[in-house]
């Protein structure tokens, strides 16, 4: 299986404070990974190191068992797409279709096939009806979905989301989340690394990594890790809402291992 492997990665902005401190982990192809951690724990720095936007101070990054060096960094970069937090900072084109096409044009994609390709990817993020629109007429959620289409059209093997939904309103959040969830299910080959503060969003992923002060402190399935309240508190994170209520209900004699609100309500109701 091809994968992304990080070995003993370190980084510092000023040469003394280690923002990333000896981190090692590997991600199998097609996995949806959430990276959690408090502000300043090193999450965004980690993302930038993986795509080579920052030069690592120590350690190794392997992609498909080949070590990434200065010489072949470009290869990894062409296989990686990064989506940022602020939808307004990544809109480059003057219309939706120009924006989606931007990366393809950079790669000299044949013009006669371009329109079909744009439409295909606009459709995959539910934005096919908006191709001629200007960014000013789009909501934040729509802009993020356009950014996703522009990223996916380059057929990356790794998609990195750096708090891609945190600036959106609830409707924007849920539409972007749905699109990401579908992309994950439909692309068995695509690895998704999502940096987030949204614990409820992390519940949807296959694997969770928790960073604290630049170190990787927890790694595992969300259902296991996100129930460990004391470990989460130690790194200043909260349990998902449903788990939190379950814990409090236990104290009044209601046992529930629900994963969703509906299940939880059912468990409470039948406990009578």
């Amino acid at each position, binding site marked *: 299986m091809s994968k992304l492997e990080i070995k003993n990665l370190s980084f510092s902005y000023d040469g003394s404070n280690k923002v990333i401190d000896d981190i090692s982990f590997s991600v199998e192809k097609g996995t949806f990974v959430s990276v959690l951690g408090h502000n300043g724990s090193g999450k965004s720095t980690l993302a930038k190191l993986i795509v080579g936007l920052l030069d690592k101070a120590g350690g190794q990054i392997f992609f498909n068992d080949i070590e990434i060096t200065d010489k072949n960094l470009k290869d990894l970069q062409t296989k990686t797409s990064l989506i940022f937090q602020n939808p307004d900072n990544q809109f480059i084109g003057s219309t939706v279709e120009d924006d989606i096409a931007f990366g393809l044009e950079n790669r000299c994609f044949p013009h006669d096939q371009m329109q079909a390709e744009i439409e295909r990817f606009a459709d995959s993020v539910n934005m096919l009806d908006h191709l001629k629109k200007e960014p000013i*007429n789009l909501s934040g959620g729509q802009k993020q979905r356009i950014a996703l289409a522009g990223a996916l059209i380059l057929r990356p093997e790794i998609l990195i989301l750096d708090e891609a939904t945190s600036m959106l*309103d609830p409707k924007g959040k849920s539409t972007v989340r749905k699109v990401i969830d579908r992309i994950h299910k439909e692309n068995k080959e695509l690895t998704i690394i999502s940096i987030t503060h949204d614990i409820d969003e992390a519940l949807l992923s296959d694997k969770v990594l928790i960073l604290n002060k630049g170190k990787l402190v927890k790694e595992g399935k969300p259902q296991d890790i996100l129930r460990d309240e004391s470990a989460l508190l130690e790194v*200043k994170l909260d349990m998902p809402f449903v788990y939190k209520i379950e814990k409090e209900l236990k104290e009044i004699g209601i046992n529930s291992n629900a994963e969703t609100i509906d299940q939880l309500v059912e468990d409470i109701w039948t406990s009578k």
Partner: protein
Amino acid sequence: MDIQVKNIFYTYQKKATNATQALMDVSLEIKDNDFLAIVGETGSGKSTLAQMFNALLIPDKGDVLVNDYVINYKNRKSRKLRGLRRQVGLVFQFPEYQLFEETVEKDVAFGVKNFGIKGEEALNRAHEALKQVGLDESYFKRAPFDLSGGEKRKVAIAGILAINPDILIFDEPTAGFDPQSSKDLMNLITEFHKNGKTIIIITHDMDLVNIYTKRVVMLERGQVTFDGTPNELFSYIKGYDRLDTPSVIKVAEKLKEKGMDIDINQIHTNEDLVEAIKKWRNKA
């Protein structure tokens, strides 16, 4: 300090063909020491309204009165309005973009200096404000650009706190914050409220509205369509997908639908919910 908004209108890009009317006949009264949330979907006019409170934007029509200051089109060039900004502090949605000094302490002290406080005193104020937002001495001499997104936000908030305004307006204060930082910031804001400040929070986060505020104003397409308590809002927005009901209210509503005798108006926190469930079980 009271704020009175009287029938204001505002249009962006007035001369353009795609002129956007951001506020239409908005009236609102905010009392001294209120703790108010302004909610509404993206583009509903929330941030536009907030920028009227310290005269960053001037209404095309209508008046905004902040104590003795009159903000309207006629007064738009009045020098008096500068004093207003010391009393109404506005923390923008992406305040981290406004950092520019070499060190964190200089950045925070910049605003204070603008209002005529110099040297040591300005730095002292900056240090105090930084500690309030949870950034200790180790941050003072660091370059703002080396900080994480959330830490930059804290520096920007400290910059406003250092000026010590009477009215504090926060535009999406906790977006991009980890849970602990969100709680810390909200506790800090609550503390300011207790000390007599007027607090206005613009947010999408209904949990935050439910836990911390007593009054919510909702804007839709530039108009005030709701003004009441958080619980009244949650029943008002049922089925409205642009705003999310807090999870704890969702559970309470679903239990009520099933037939549980539960007073949703009393539910603000997880503890409230568990307590209500306990009572229901004891009765049954």
